[in-house]
């Protein structure tokens, strides 16, 4: 699987890890990763340390996640490599997400 979801109920944290190419092919799978969670979590982490490529469709999918979870939810984009971090910064995703 390209997407793994791990939920920590004690710390109210959800981690969505993506492996390989983060692109349009993951559209449904990525949405399923956060849309069916029961609780409201304190922190949502998108682990991108294993992502090799990211296209603009993936940026759209992140925005969609942001809208679905509400502006109050904390979403961290973690572990992006320099190339991907650059794409995120060009589109100023730091305005809507915490980028680490």
């Amino acid at each position, binding site marked *: 699987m390209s997407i793994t979801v791990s939920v920590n109920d004690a710390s109210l944290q959800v981690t969505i890890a993506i492996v390989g190419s983060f692109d349009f092919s993951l559209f449904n799978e990525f949405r399923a990763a956060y849309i069916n969670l029961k609780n409201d979590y304190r922190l949502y982490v998108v682990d991108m340390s294993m992502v090799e490529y990211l296209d603009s469709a993936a940026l759209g999918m992140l*925005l969609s996640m942001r809208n679905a979870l509400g502006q109050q939810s904390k979403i961290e984009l973690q572990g992006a490599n320099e190339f991907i971090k650059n794409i995120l910064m*060009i589109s*100023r995703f730091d305005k809507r997400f915490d980028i680490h």
Partner: protein
Amino acid sequence: MKLLCIDSEQIYCDIIALCAEKEGVVVESATNFNDAISVFKRFSPDIVTLDVLIKGGSGLELVRELKNLSGKRFVPMIFLASQTSDAVMNRCFKCGADDFIPKPFSEVLFEIRLKTHMRHVELIKEMYRKNKALTYYQAMIEREHEMAHHVLDHIQTRSENNTDHVMITRLSAASFNGDLALVKTRSDGARLAFVGDFTGHGLPASIGALPIMQAFFDAVDDLLSVHDLAVQMNRILISILPDYMFCAGYLLLISPNGEVTYWGGGMPNAYIQRNDGRFEYLHSLHMPLGILGVSEFEVNLNSIMLHPNDTLIIVSDGVLELKNSSNEMLGEDRVKELISEAYPNTPLVVAQLTVEKKLAEYRKESLQMDDITLVSLRNAC
């Protein structure tokens, strides 16, 4: 599932029928060569069992004939034979057999093998069905992409292009993603330009492009400010596009005195190649169009001077991410090198053609993944 049992001895046909019917398989049998051919044609079985020795012909000849008759259909042929030497088995497989069970055979073993072959037949049928569905969807998507291309190409025809002051290069990728480049001179002599890169593929991208184009040309007629046009474009896209779609872009106005006022969101740096060789940059400081709501949208503009014979160059990320045959991206350094070699002291049309040629040389046979847009502008005065 249907099984054809070919055996000259009726008793074997009965045993095989008994075993196969337990698995819910419909069985017909044939006891000689010619019958086997005619039953195969009429019954069109999913699986065949046969012997090496058959009345009226050879089993080896028969298996070849039946495989031929199956055409593209995969019909497993299982030999059940009392001649069990390696040489015979070898010949059977060479003639097209898929399995070989020595006689006398254990019913349990036969049933297990039969079930395995049934599973294979099911899998291959499933694969054919999916393949057919995929072919259908692929054809549909290709048609939609063609239509989107058509729509966008039509929009592009209203833009200025191929002049001493405006050159637009658009190279579409195999998987089309919707770049848009519009340039038009206003009645007051100022020139308005929009270079945009929509998210998504095919039709959705062109759907966003239509109202953007309309707003752009209305703004040319109405002498609308860059500020107001940026706000309007953002509002249009917010209202018509789903939340996962947006449009990165530069919107700029070049006054007759060379002052460039611009808004940029989600785009790589754009360049001003001074005629003396120096580089300066246009920075895209904002989120792309179609993300932030009306109250959040940031529209502070920047400005920079474009002197006579300077060139302003905007490239889409497709240019920076263009890959050569060793999968290396072109990258910003090489783009700057290309620009600095091509544009200074060279007519715009010539310089642009040089860059197009260099990009093609870099790419060689490797697949262009993204649309490529390269717009260069010079001040008319």
